[in-house]
């Protein structure tokens, strides 16, 4: 059933791609791999990729999902791109704080603030 639904939906806003997660859980290995692949192809399409991950629908994630996000961050950096995370619910934000990944990622409270934070 859920296998046929793409793991993310992408909205283009000028040169920024806004990514929304379609599942409220980023847990399953297969789902995480699927999301990772989709994000990698978005990154590889452009020279200076600008990616905004909107977490507003996400209620659960695992360390495997964090690993995938770190991988994505490294890939964006390699291409001199910019990655922003936004709309992370409090419980999920605590996971980022505990793992100190708030130091690695640029996390902004809202989508608007994240959009405004991209540089040319």
């Amino acid at each position, binding site marked *: 059933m859920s296998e046929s639904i793409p793991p993310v939906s992408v909205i283009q806003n000028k040169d920024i791609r806004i990514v929304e997660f379609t599942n409220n859980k980023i847990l399953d290995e297969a789902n995480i791999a699927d999301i990772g692949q989709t994000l990698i192809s978005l990154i590889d399409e452009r020279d200076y990729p600008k990616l905004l991950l909107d977490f507003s629908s996400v209620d*659960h994630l695992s360390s495997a999902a964090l690993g995938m996000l770190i991988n994505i961050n490294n890939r964006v950096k390699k291409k001199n791109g910019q990655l922003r995370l936004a709309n992370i619910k409090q419980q999920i934000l605590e996971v980022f704080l505990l793992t100190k*990944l708030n130091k690695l990622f640029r996390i902004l409270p809202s989508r608007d603030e994240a959009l405004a934070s991209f540089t040319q």
Partner: protein
Amino acid sequence: MSISGANNDDRRKHRPAGEHRSSSDSARSDSSPVRVTIPSDFGASREIQKQIIDRVVRCGFGDQAIFAIKLALEEAMINAIKHGNKLDPAKSVHIAYHVTPQQAEITVEDEGGGFDRHCVPDPTADENIEKCSGRGILLMEAYMTSVEYGANGRRVKMIKKNEEQATPHLSS
């Protein structure tokens, strides 16, 4: 390696999650301890995780505690299946859980080589922050009330106290 005797007969011992209940009497209290053995398979794991969380919800744990148990259980199961048993279908994962309104106690044991907790590098250290793994144990220990390792690291026992049950909601 202990898989020399593994064959299809060994796989037959795996039954759907729930059949290994120590209390076969379904009329027994929902809070009785349960033991389950599953194959090293994410689908089987998902099923047992759901059973445990259903019980946690029924025992009146709060949202924060449910989130914590869900996360820690996910990490423990992935550790057992992927890192412990290395996805070997001939190896099993043994789960024991005892959920009461006071606390949830969950033990997960794999049949892998075990590990030494003290040798796991700190994933929050600057030199490790960009590495993709090593956060599962950190999250389990942060979110559960206690986490103990046994059987050379093949077994993890986690307890989460239900701190919110001391203040029950009053309903009319």
